[in-house]
């Protein structure tokens, strides 16, 4: 392979991002959908928090604990969905054949998916977080710098899952697109979003600790309940995410190669 074959072009990545920004600009239902579900979730959990505040000493200790959890969980979910939906847009529009007879490298597509997922997650969860300020007098930005660490670790885990899902949809066709909506919920009970890992049965706890999200949510609770930032959890989350993201990228590229072997890039569909 020559230097030109392993090129990494920001212009090509920008071209794909531009393609999806064009789409977002002229499709308000798509933008609305990004903000709608995170906001509905936030409102629901906001009222549950108001109710539990007077009935639960745990919630009374830190009123924002449920709302922080629900918003941060949505970072992971939207991060994953952002990758999968943007990739499936190419399949729905039967555009993959044209894209991959251009000099676009599959890893450049991965980079553009990640960028678009970041934009979509910021719009969706950011919108819900802003609405929470006047509605429930809850400002997640009060978490300060740790919020950036929580956000990045969760969105990166979402990217890893999203890339695996995209690979599966490429390999098995749009008939498998429901995987994009359900995949992340298979691990949701293990992510310690609303309860600590120690609540889980002993044999499941090692599985939970192998998820970056569990470390983030445990760290979030420590910060809200005890005002301490646990660097130990952060280090674990970052280390695991390095493995998860590498695994996600490798899986997507593996499925992409399988698609080239099976002729799926020209014949996308169910």
């Amino acid at each position, binding site marked *: 392979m020559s230097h*030109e074959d392993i090129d990494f072009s920001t212009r090509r990545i920008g071209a794909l991002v531009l393609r999806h920004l064009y789409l977002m600009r002229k499709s308000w239902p798509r933008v609305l959908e990004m903000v709608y579900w995170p906001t509905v979730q936030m409102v629901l959990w906001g009222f549950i928090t108001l109710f539990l505040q007077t009935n639960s000493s745990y919630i009374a200790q830190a009123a924002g604990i449920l709302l922080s959890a629900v918003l941060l969980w949505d970072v992971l979910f939207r991060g994953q969905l952002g990758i999968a939906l943007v990739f499936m847009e190419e399949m729905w529009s039967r555009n993959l054949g044209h894209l991959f007879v*251009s*000099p676009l490298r599959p890893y450049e597509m991965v980079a553009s998916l990640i960028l678009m997922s970041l934009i979509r997650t910021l719009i969706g969860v950011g919108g819900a977080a802003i609405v929470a300020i006047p509605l429930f007098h809850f400002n997640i930005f009060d978490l300060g710098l740790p919020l950036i660490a929580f956000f990045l670790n969760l969105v990166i885990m979402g990217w890893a899952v999203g890339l695996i899902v995209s690979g599966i949809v490429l390999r098995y066709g749009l008939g498998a697109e429901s995987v994009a909506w359900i995949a992340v919920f298979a691990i949701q009970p293990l992510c310690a979003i609303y309860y600590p890992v120690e609540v889980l049965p002993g044999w499941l706890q090692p599985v939970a600790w192998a998820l970056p999200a569990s470390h983030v949510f445990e760290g979030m609770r420590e910060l809200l309940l005890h005002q301490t930032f646990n660097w130990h959890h952060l280090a674990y989350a970052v280390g695991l995410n390095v493995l998860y993201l590498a695994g996600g990228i490798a899986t997507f590229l593996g499925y992409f190669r399988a698609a080239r072997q099976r002729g799926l890039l*020209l014949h996308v569909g169910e």
Partner: protein
Amino acid sequence: MNASHQGYVIEAHRLSKVFDQVSAVDDISLQIRHGVTTALLGGNGAGKTTTLAMLLGLLLPTTGSIRILGEDMLQHRYRLLHRMNFSSPYVDLPQRLTVRENLTVYGHLYRLSDLKQRIRRIAGELNLDEVLDRRYGRLSAGQKTRVSLAKSLLNEPELLLLDEPTASLDPDTADAIRTHLEQYQKRTGASILLASHNMSEVERMAADVIMMRRGKIVDAGSPDRLIDRYGRSSMEEVFIDVARNRELHTK
């Protein structure tokens, strides 16, 4: 232009593709001459699209080698893709984007300079000025085909692969597209490989014809020589003979 020393723009050697034990392309070798239009003919399921997909690198061959513009396609695919392009009515562009937006995205993918002027010029040449700011999904079949062709000509390819470029078009639009391709080839010296079911198109445009049946190349030559060899009066009759596996008619 940097074609190989023999003057072949494509050289495929012992190319095969097997899908789940079914042989779609079976041990074919072909050489496409530089600067001319070559037609790849065959009935449905003959292996034309599979062959085109392998030449484009969209599909990995089970066995065999491909050299394009003098370089190994499997080794230097991305370098070569800058110098090639492809159009097919069966591969779409994003429906909600306008024609201009689609061409802009693809122009960036090919890292083209002077993109705005380039789009304006190609739109003028293909009579797309009036639909540049219309959504691709709202265009007629003929307009979509012209947009797909505009996309494929954006980077001024030295090698253009076309899968049924005039399928489902009215005779007037089809003629305009053929004329444009002929003018492009005359201006740039580009090579064109064309998969088509339209025999009058093949007779008009192709200097060479490769005929496929059931994944194999069964005959090749210029349209005139094939018509003569089969003792027929048109490529349409030759096509039917080949598709139905008839013996050669001798004059």
